[in-house]
């Protein structure tokens, strides 16, 4: 852990000596439950009388639904009901940004896997058999599966009104600026899947008041609730959601999947209904990362100062809107990268197609752009004969820089420092002497400078890398050193934290402080979804530090408290953390008022305002001490606070100017890879990464996020893609959608900077997404360095390394 500046924005001194307070590696409250298998995930729900649901899905990516015959399914013993769109009592569509997606197909299906009917039956096998008996007659309709073609005149319309989802334009400076050195390139990012391990699952229980209780793994309880209530035709208060254990999310649970279906089935049958998607169904049951095509032109002067960046990107949004408008907005506003660029012209368009709907995934629009602009920076460095890090640091954004949107970066932006840190990070051990020295000899030198100015390959490594004991191909015995060349690559990226473009982004927290027999206890309640990232740990840490209480219970998240917003956009520690802190401060105010009475002080006595809450005591500067448990014994203090970050504003529709973002999170990566250049196989040998987190609320958890995010970026670089053909998914299984295994992930050198953001609670920055951005281009840069290939598309396939770039499809 590296702390370069003291954290700011701590209005009073936090409880020193509180075990498990902020800044400590407090253990997860759910850790032992999870390690013993006793933690209840959404797929583990069970109740007496429970029945099971299954979904009938379209096998076609675009077809008219001519007829749906449920009679055979209904006649099957053990089947309780079969529902179609006719059975949706309220709004027949749903959607995060706009309700354009049918709960169950109405007269048309627009992507393969679109739900057409749902079945409830005694057990999962009967439900599956029942679903198989639903006869749907389809009439195939013309397909549009290429996002660029979808935007061309005359393309078949996925929705009436055309296929353009959103077009964001960013215009800054002189559009016709000329530069001495110009590079351009076309890049492509494939469709990545979040591939959480716990598939979609939940249980709906009909309630006596005509409403429904839904136990669900999700990222945003209230937005689910509102969509469920609308489709059920119920007031929101009759739809109560409780978070069930979440087996990972990464964006895939932001949209509704089975929530409405479960509630429809439960209300129709009067029975609790459970659904669990299989892995195969899960690939059809949630949105994916947008595939993107990106054309960039960068211009610089001879000294490597950027003169202009022009970009034109098309994002494939698939069949329904989901969060495409926000993804497109991020790609545009962050599309020039964390650099000072005087002249910028960026166009990003989202398109409807008959591919699977795409929406949120960790990095959310910034990932695609980062791969392209960082690839461009390497290309420009090569054209200039500069080291890729030198080119980047020369143009690095700093505090006070303004984005192409005109928004001034008003807190730390340590882009150059992050790059310099990964540049000099320790190099991986090399198995045997002389192995690393390639033709240039200095390739894997101690400074990480690779081979000379272009960040070149390090030459044949010859023997097993010391780090993981593996060569490319891993355990499959493809090389004993033949063809193996080492390469080094660098990249940096940045991501907005929180919801942008004028969204009213807030959270709500309730903190209750009770005392019984001298024992002080607190509970904290919010609707913020713990999806694995460790928010529950941080919520308790904040209460401990703010109120000086050891014993803190984090209540299960549900809709009995106000909205916390989404667990996405790296925002929960910031926004719900901010709400918990604000609720604690409200509790503190009440404690001070009560203490004033006990101590015989005026409520506004400065001695009180400076008081510390530590170890269950309220300590005044002057020596006055009150046992907090006594203050709240028989009269608990409870405060519920809604807290929002400072407002943002919409982008100007023609120029894209505007203060659209709240905060940025910066990270840089250096990747060292061994590539078997003859077989096109890659083994990542080491990752070095540095990230500014503002304040590490829980350093171990912060590092865990960085490891995990980096690994998903490695996956996108080298293996992860939902492969589509004519609108159909070719690889909906973990046999053919590959995610990194333990031998695929190298040791990581992680440096964490804490440069406080004075506008944020505790100075913290959202952590989760930034590591996913630059790991992908860093790995690809390293593979390029080892192979000399252009590699303009991710994931890089062995074919691309062996035969060179294939024409983007």
């Amino acid at each position: 852990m590296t702390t370069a500046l003291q954290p700011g924005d701590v209005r009073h001194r936090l409880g020193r000596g509180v075990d498990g307070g902020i800044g400590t590696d407090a253990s997860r409250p759910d850790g032992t439950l999870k390690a013993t298998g006793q933690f209840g995930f959404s797929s583990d729900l069970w109740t007496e009388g429970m029945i099971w649901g299954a979904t009938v899905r379209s096998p076609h990516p675009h077809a008219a639904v001519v007829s749906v015959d449920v009679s055979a399914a209904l006649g099957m013993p053990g089947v309780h009901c079969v529902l179609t769109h006719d059975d949706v009592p309220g709004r027949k569509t749903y959607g995060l940004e706009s309700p354009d997606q049918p709960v169950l197909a109405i007269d048309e299906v627009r992507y393969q896997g679109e739900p057409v009917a749902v079945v409830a039956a005694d057990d999962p096998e009967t439900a599956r058999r029942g679903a198989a008996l639903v006869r749907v007659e389809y009439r195939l309709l013309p397909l549009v599966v290429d996002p660029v073609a979808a935007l061309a005149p005359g393309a078949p319309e996925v929705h009436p009104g055309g296929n353009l989802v959103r077009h964001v334009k960013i215009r800054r400076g002189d559009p016709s600026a000329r530069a001495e050195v110009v590079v351009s390139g076309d890049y492509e990012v494939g469709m990545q899947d979040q591939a959480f391990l716990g598939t979609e699952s939940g249980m709906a229980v009909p309630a006596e008041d005509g409403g429904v209780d839904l136990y669900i793994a999700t990222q945003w309880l209230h937005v689910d609730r509102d969509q469920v209530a609308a489709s059920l035709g119920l007031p929101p208060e009759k739809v109560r959601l409780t978070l069930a254990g979440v087996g990972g999310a990464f964006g895939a649970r932001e949209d509704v999947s089975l929530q409405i279906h479960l509630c429809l089935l439960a209300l129709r049958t009067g029975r609790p209904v459970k659904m669990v998607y299989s892995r195969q169904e899960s690939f059809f049951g949630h949105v994916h990362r947008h595939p993107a095509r990106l054309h960039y032109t960068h211009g610089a002067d001879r000294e490597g100062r950027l003169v202009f960046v022009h970009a034109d990107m098309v994002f494939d949004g698939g069949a329904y809107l989901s969060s495409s408008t926000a993804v497109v907005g991020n790609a545009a506003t962050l599309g020039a990268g964390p650099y000072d660029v005087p002249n910028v012209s960026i166009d990003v368009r989202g398109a409807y197609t008959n591919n699977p709907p795409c929406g949120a995934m960790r990095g959310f629009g910034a990932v695609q752009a980062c791969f392209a602009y960082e690839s461009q920076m390497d290309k420009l460095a090569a054209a200039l004969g500069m080291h890729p890090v030198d080119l980047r640091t020369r143009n690095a954004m700093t505090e006070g820089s303004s984005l192409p949107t005109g928004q001034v970066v008003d807190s730390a932006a340590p882009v150059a420092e992050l790059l310099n840190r990964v540049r000099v990070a320790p190099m991986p051990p090399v198995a045997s002497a002389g192995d690393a020295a390639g033709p240039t000899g200095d390739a894997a030198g101690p400074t990480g400078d690779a081979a000379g100015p272009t960040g070149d390959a390090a030459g044949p490594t010859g023997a097993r890398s010391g780090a993981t004991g593996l060569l490319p191909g891993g355990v499959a015995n493809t090389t004993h050193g033949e063809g193996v060349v080492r390469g080094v690559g660098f990249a940096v990226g940045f991501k907005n934290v929180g919801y942008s473009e004028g969204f009213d982004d807030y959270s709500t927290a309730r903190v209750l402080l009770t005392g019984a027999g001298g024992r002080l206890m607190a509970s904290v309640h919010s609707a913020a979804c713990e999806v694995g990232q460790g928010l529950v740990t941080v919520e308790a840490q904040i209460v401990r530090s703010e109120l000086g209480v050891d014993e803190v219970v984090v209540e299960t998240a549900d809709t009995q408290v106000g909205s916390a917003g989404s667990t996405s956009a790296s925002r929960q520690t910031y926004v719900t953390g901010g709400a918990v802190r604000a609720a604690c401060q409200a509790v503190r105010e009440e404690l001070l008022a009560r203490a004033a009475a006990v101590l015989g002080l005026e409520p506004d006595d400065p001695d009180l305002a400076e008081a510390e809450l530590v170890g269950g005591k309220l300590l005044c500067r002057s020596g006055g001490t009150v046992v907090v448990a006594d203050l709240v014994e028989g009269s608990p203090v409870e405060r519920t606070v809604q807290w929002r970050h400072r407002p943002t504003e919409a982008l100007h529709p023609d120029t894209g100017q505007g203060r659209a973002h709240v905060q940025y999170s910066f990270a840089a990566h250096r990747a060292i890879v061994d590539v078997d250049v003859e077989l096109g196989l890659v083994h990542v040998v080491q990752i070095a990464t540095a990230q500014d987190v503002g304040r590490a609320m829980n350093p171990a958890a912060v590092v865990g996020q960085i490891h995990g995010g980096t690994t998903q970026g490695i996956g996108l670089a080298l293996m992860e893609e939902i492969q589509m053909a004519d609108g159909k998914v070719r690889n909906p299984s973990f046999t053919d959608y590959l995610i990194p295994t333990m031998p695929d992930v190298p040791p990581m050198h992680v440096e964490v900077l804490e440069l406080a953001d004075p506008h944020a609670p505790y100075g913290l920055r959202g952590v989760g997404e930034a590591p996913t951005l630059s790991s992908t281009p860093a790995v690809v840069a390293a593979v390029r360095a080892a192979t000399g290939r252009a590699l303009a598309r991710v994931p890089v396939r062995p074919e691309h390394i062996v035969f060179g770039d294939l024409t983007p499809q």
Partner: protein
Amino acid sequence: MEFLAPTSWDEALAVKAEHPEAEVIAGGTDVMVDLNFDRRRPAMLVDLTRIADLATWQIDGSVLTIGAGVTYARIIDELSTLAPGLAIASRTVGSPQIRNRGTIGGNLGSASPAGDAHPPLLATKATVEVASARGSRSVPVEKFFTGAKRHVLAPDELIAAVTVPVAAGPQQFAKVGTRNAMVIAVTSFALALDPHAHAVGTGIGSAAPTPIRAEEAERVLAGELAAADQWEHRRPLDDHLVDHFARLSAEAAAPIDDVRGTAAYRRHALAVLARRTLSWAWSEYQRN
């Protein structure tokens, strides 16, 4: 669905004679996936894991007989000297959990073109011992596969064992996949050198509708080794010979484009694997 678990081989054969449509299950690593994914609903499952004899191996002279129920884990632990190519291939199968369960008989029964055991069995000219209540027969492994996921077994037949010659020389196996563990072969190649018989054996996986041999490559290499008296002299192999062998190996394949790789890549990779496995095997032969 019915579930039967015979405890003797004769009982298993009797069950299969009476219910030729029954699905046979051993390690379950293929059958259970089909059941879990709702791809198959056989009327009957016949479990072979309770037949103790099926999970044994023995040596008779120079012939190693491996019961169909022997797992990959045991092949790695117990047969790495007797059947080194098969053991290397077994080590590349899935995970420890899969290797603890999956069996050589099951691999043959599934007859996937990507089955990891198949190339080394082809390279060592293995024989599949097949039985039914009607009697038993021996099928050379290269005659065993009749198409993608199809084989010569009659509906009432079961795989009893595989026989391979005890390794007389170096054997190698290499498999290409797009991650560093847990992959189904994009393509794979096995090589067996038999200095006693002056024979060369090859096996190719995932590059044709069935696992195949590279017969011309075998013939050319064996011929050149004999002509130059190389089995005796163990001199370094001529680069042209190695390249020729690699090219012929790749030409033997009939790969397709699919979700795991392109035909062109498979053919290219096969040449690389053939060249490398030959150089490794020959180096080992030179050392010993």
